[in-house]
């Protein structure tokens, strides 16, 4: 049904598009994307807003299935039949396209100044000199909590690590709720919701991440081992048999109201909003001491770039400049709570939970997941190894020091930082 609707819409839009050219010499732009979930938002909100402001340019959003996107896009680019605008995956996948000449250099595009360096880092060359995609959306890590449970037990929202563990202890002592809903069975939960969630506070966000890439810091340094030591302390507060608890199990535990705290990524917001029957709140990863600067993982997820072979490059650039504008950011972020605009201009969000997440940008320094840029190009793959080691540390089968030493050894075996 959705397929037929989609085909219908696409056909209709292509016919209308061609009709448009014939009548008014309109320029038509086609967007390649894997976000077929977002089709309605583009058709009903984003594209009309753009077309209204820029008469003479028509835009078609043409998504494919997420798993097929990379292969289909590569084939289309090689054949020269790809659309004018290309939705960019973060990091190496898009960098590869840029190196092959399938993405245009957008460093000087009007509107790029609206983004911070961190926001642009996912779509830049390794030296940071050339940018090739306009950042669109990111996901933020933090903790979502059951407000009702916190009120019932009289717990204040924790800001420091000490308060955080005191809260967990109190929930555990009460016994009504499982203190924290997380499992280690699927491994990535431990790494993404655990290590990458709380880590930036220890390695000082970008400072530590860039030093790691430059080789000035090592994973065996105190700043990188400490998050593991903290993760190891989570163990007693996880549910019974968390070793065999999967990601959907954790989600269900929390939305059924059986657990009080959920280490989260902001992409959960829309699902949780529809499933949870209680009030929810969110807090940023607690800092070590009151007054410390807080750092959050604000991980780049979606960008949009220009196909250099586009016949309507000027119109496409107009569109990209619009994507870089606060207007786009507001529509996009409100239509998809949990996927935040990377625009530096603050966006007012209607969803309170999403607004809470995005408000941390004002007081905390953002960074991206430490393993994504450059460091996961070789074998053994640092990201995958981090999954395994984070789960080991929480399971208590490996000490934080041993896990970090193993990770650094693996990284040293193939990664030689430029001196």
């Amino acid at each position: 049904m959705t397929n037929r609707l989609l085909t219908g819409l696409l056909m209709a839009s292509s016919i209308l598009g061609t009709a448009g050219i014939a009548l008014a010499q309109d320029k038509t732009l086609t967007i390649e994307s894997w976000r077929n979930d977002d089709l309605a938002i583009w058709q009903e909100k984003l594209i009309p807003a753009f077309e209204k402001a820029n008469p003479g340019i028509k835009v078609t959003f043409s998504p494919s299935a997420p798993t097929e996107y990379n292969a289909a896009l590569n084939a289309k680019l090689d054949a020269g039949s790809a659309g004018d605008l290309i939705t960019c995956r973060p990091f190496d996948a898009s960098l590869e396209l840029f190196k092959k000449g399938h993405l245009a250099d957008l460093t000087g595009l009007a509107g790029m100044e609206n983004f911070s360096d961190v926001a642009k880092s996912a779509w830049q060359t390794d030296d940071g000199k050339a940018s090739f995609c306009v950042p669109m959306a990111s996901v933020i890590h933090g903790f979502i909590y059951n407000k009702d449970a916190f009120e019932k037990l009289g717990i204040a929202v924790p800001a420091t690590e000490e308060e955080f563990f005191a809260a967990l202890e109190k929930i555990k002592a009460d016994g009504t709720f499982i203190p924290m809903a997380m499992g280690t069975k699927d491994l990535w939960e431990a790494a993404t919701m655990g290590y990458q969630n709380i880590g930036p506070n220890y390695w000082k966000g970008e400072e530590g991440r860039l030093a790691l890439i430059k080789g000035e810091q090592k994973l065996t340094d105190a700043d990188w081992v400490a998050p593991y030591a903290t993760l190891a302390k989570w163990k007693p507060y996880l549910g019974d048999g968390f070793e065999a608890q999967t990601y959907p199990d954790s989600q269900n535990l929390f939305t059924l109201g059986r657990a009080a705290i959920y280490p989260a990524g902001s992409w959960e917001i829309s699902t949780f909003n529809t499933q949870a029957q209680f009030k929810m709140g969110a807090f940023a990863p607690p800092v070590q001491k009151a007054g410390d600067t807080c750092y959050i993982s604000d991980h780049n997820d979606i960008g949009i770039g220009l196909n250099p072979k586009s016949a309507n490059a000027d119109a496409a650039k107009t569109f990209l400049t619009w994507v870089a504008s606060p207007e786009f950011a507001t529509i996009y972020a409100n239509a998809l709570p949990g996927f935040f605009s990377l625009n530096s201009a603050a966006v007012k969000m209607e969803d309170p939970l999403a607004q809470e997440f995005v408000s941390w940008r004002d007081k905390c320094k953002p960074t991206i997941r430490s393993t994504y840029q450059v460091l996961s190009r070789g074998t053994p793959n640092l990201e995958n190894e981090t999954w395994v080691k984070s789960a080991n540390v929480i399971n208590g089968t490996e000490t934080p020091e041993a896990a970090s030493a193993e990770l650094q050894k693996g990284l040293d075996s193939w990664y030689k930082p430029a001196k």
Partner: protein
Amino acid sequence: MNNGPLAAGPRDFEMSQQSLEHSQDRRPTRWHIAVFLAPALLVYTAVMILPLFGTLQLSLFRNVDNAQVFAGFDNFRTLFGDPRWSASFWNALGNNTWFFIIHMLVQNPIGVVLAALLSSPKLRFSAFYRTAIFIPTILSFVIVGFAWKLILSPLWGVAPNLLDLVGLKSLFVPWLGKEEYALTTLSLISVWQFVGIPMMLIYAAMLSIPDEVIEAAECDGVTGFSQFWKIQLPLILPSIGIISILTFVGNFNAFDLIYSAQGALAGPNYATDILGTFLYRTFFGFQLQIGDKNMGATIASMMFFIILAGVCLYLFLIQTRLRRYQF
């Protein structure tokens, strides 16, 4: 047919003489053999032999600057020489061997016992049991993996509740999440799924034992358990041999159950990583890791050699020594 040779008269002799001369004159080319073999041979070549050699060839090359370069046995040297690659490989091979041992020690003996029980004439509803025990075999791995994950789930699974009913809740462990139990648990799940196959094969072998032999044994006073031990078991040994080799090949090619229950990283801490999952991760890549088809092909070649060696060992050392009985 017993009187065949006696009945051979002069006419038969003539005919054979004739055909002998005939063939000496001009050997007819027997085209039909080639024609009948061709379809199977072509299909087998296209889907089995060519890919096999393609894999072996791939394992001798390396990707340097987006071009395939001949590298000799360098990939094998990396696999065995590099401490990380070799650690992963030996871990996977060790786990695979344990997986196989569990099948041999649990699946096949249970299969034999079930077959012996089923072939007992006193058992009622044997057709029902036969079907019920065989049904898991036809289920998809995905269903089996998912169902057992749910059964053993510490949160919603029936396993902790059932143990609780008999007061043994303290024995419950999140088996799939513990390094020391996960592989054995998965092996037993696989045994549960496939125990129907040895059962069926042995059951068929037992049915083929002539009643005369059993009756003669009974006349000699060999009954009950010793009858099974001394009469039936020796007669089904060739079938057990075949089952062992099928189990060996199946286990060293296994992948699906581990993948569907534990994911491609075969957690916790690679405790359930077998050659199949190791190959999958290497060949296709996983998450941020990009696939390396040359190293993947190297692992696939090693799997092929291991299975080949095992099968040869069986064929030349064991099968030739098995005593067969003709009735």
